């Protein structure tokens, strides 16, 4: 990644307090277009709070957010989505009872007017859904197949394809692989790679170092509401990342007793 590339999102000294709890204590991260930026951290490290600040769910207590170089203040998630920051939540992405194409266009249904009345353009929706799924490597039986018949990895992929189709410039993935099996995980990681190649910035939240190393261009580790810095691919080993996430020493002793299997 060239250092001359301008960041698409720049988070500067973000602090977020919930009452007396300091969830984020001065976190700064730059997200570059076309990179897969892995955000690592153990449970409670502040990953979720941080991305929710980026996606407009929370407003930072202090600090600044720059989007495409301009200071931004999102009132709610719809503002962020309109600006091009899309978030795919782990289990709230899709509605299993509805068909893939109804899910794909949920909230953005295409309209075709018949005698002046607005109707859902199913032909367009079905065609686009099939094309987009094909390009992500998912072969549907048909666009009317219910999302409930898809695997967890496929559902994540549909959600990602949807965000990309509707013009996301920054795609935040909240632990997309944490509930998935090996093969499904590699499908999602392959999807992330495709999205990145389109020039979209991917923020990939995970606590699995191996998943992060598989696709990440840069890695930021959060620990107890603070960032321990951003490292580029090749500058850091998986072991170092693991140590940083867990807070170093403590984990080293634990890992020793487990024979280096964690």
């Amino acid at each position: 990644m060239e250092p001359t590339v301008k960041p698409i999102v720049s988070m500067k000294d973000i602090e977020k307090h919930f009452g007396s709890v300091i969830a984020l204590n001065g976190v700064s991260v730059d997200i570059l277009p076309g990179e897969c930026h892995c955000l690592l951290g153990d449970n409670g490290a502040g990953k979720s709070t941080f991305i929710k600040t980026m996606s407009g769910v929370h407003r930072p207590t202090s600090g600044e957010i720059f989007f495409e170089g301009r200071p931004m203040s999102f009132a709610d998630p719809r503002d962020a989505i309109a600006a091009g920051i899309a978030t795919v939540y782990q289990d709230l992405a899709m509605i299993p009872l509805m068909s893939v194409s109804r899910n794909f266009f949920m909230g953005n249904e295409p309209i075709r007017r018949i005698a002046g009345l607005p109707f859902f353009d199913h032909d367009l929706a079905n065609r686009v859904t099939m094309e987009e799924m094909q390009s992500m490597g998912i072969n549907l039986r048909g666009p009317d197949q219910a999302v409930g018949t898809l695997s967890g990895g496929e559902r994540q992929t549909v959600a990602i394809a949807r965000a990309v189709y509707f013009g996301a410039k920054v795609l935040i993935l909240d632990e997309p692989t944490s509930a998935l099996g090996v093969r499904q995980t590699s499908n999602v990681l392959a999807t992330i790679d495709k999205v990145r190649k389109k020039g979209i910035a991917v923020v990939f939240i995970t606590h699995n170092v191996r998943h992060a190393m598989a696709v990440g261009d840069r890695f930021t580790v959060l620990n107890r509401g603070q960032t321990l810095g951003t490292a580029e691919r090749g500058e850091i080993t998986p072991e170092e990342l693991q140590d940083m996430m867990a807070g170093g020493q403590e984990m080293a002793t634990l890992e020793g007793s487990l024979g280096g299997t964690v």
Partner: protein
Amino acid sequence: MADTPQAVIDERVKDVSPWRKALIRPELGGIIGTVAVFTFFALLAHDSGMFNAQGILNWSTVSAQFMIIAVGACLLMIAGEFDLSVGSMIGFAGMMIAIFGVTLGWPMWIAILVTFAICMAFGALNGVIVVRTGLPSFIVTLATLFILRGFTIFIPQTLERKTIIGGIREAAEGDWLAALFGGTIGRPFFQWLGDAGVIGVFDRGNRAGEPVVNGVPMLIIWAFVLIVFGHILLTRTRFGNWIFAAGGDAQAARYAGVPVDRVKILMFVFTAFCATVFATCQVMEFGSAGADRGLLKEFEAIIAVVIGGALLTGGYGSVIGAALGALIFGVVQQGLFFANVESSLFRVFLGVILLLAVILNTYIRRIITGER
């Protein structure tokens, strides 16, 4: 790994034949039930007059009543909510028309319009309370059930010292709006059918020569219009997609930008609208309003919807299915009468049908949605 993404073809996805695909749909249970019920009565009651013009009018009118409230209940259930106040709303709406139109002597069309406005406002209130408090609609509308039924008894007792108000037909005479609910249409056509000998005619009395069925009641027209409207709204519009989404997973729908609260409130209003249509047709037909009208109608509506394949917890269902459920309900209720079966057995019959339909529907739904 990440540098060589491959299209993964899942060899476990079986090809599904077009025949099976056309068959496996939410309405399938309702279709099978309808065929079964008609076959049953064709065998049991074919010579009882159930399938001559008068008989058909009889059970289709009863079915149309169920259909009107089932359409509202169906869309609301798919949006993830219940309305238990439908029955009370029917009693209340009928009583309001009688109070305004007879007791207060307003022109009938004003009485009807004001009643629609009041009832739809109550529907909106149900919706706003459910959406704002996050309470189950089961509880909120149970409260409305009692409140509305209480008013339906209290108001006529206070004003008229009785709980049944008559004289509505006289008051509605010549009223343009009342005719939309009370009359029949297609009379010349039925006269022609009678003259041609296709349907029976009266052969004595002051109606001699008139066909036994002298038109299609407006009730049936309303049922038909509401079914077509509900079906198109649900399957062919953006709003229909929002109804499915609101009931399927409200939070996921909100994240996708669906105005879930507005969808739910509007569906409560629509349910109230359907209940008021039912009530208006009923008071125009009977010529009176009674404080006990509409009792248990909310459950009959919900049963029809569930027989029709909708999921009680929302997000799944079909208006056509609900209409077939209402048809099954009406045909069974009237058919047992034609077949001379002891009327108390109606409940046994209904319970068995409900159980069979729900089992079948659950099986079909699992095939479609991949639930486990």
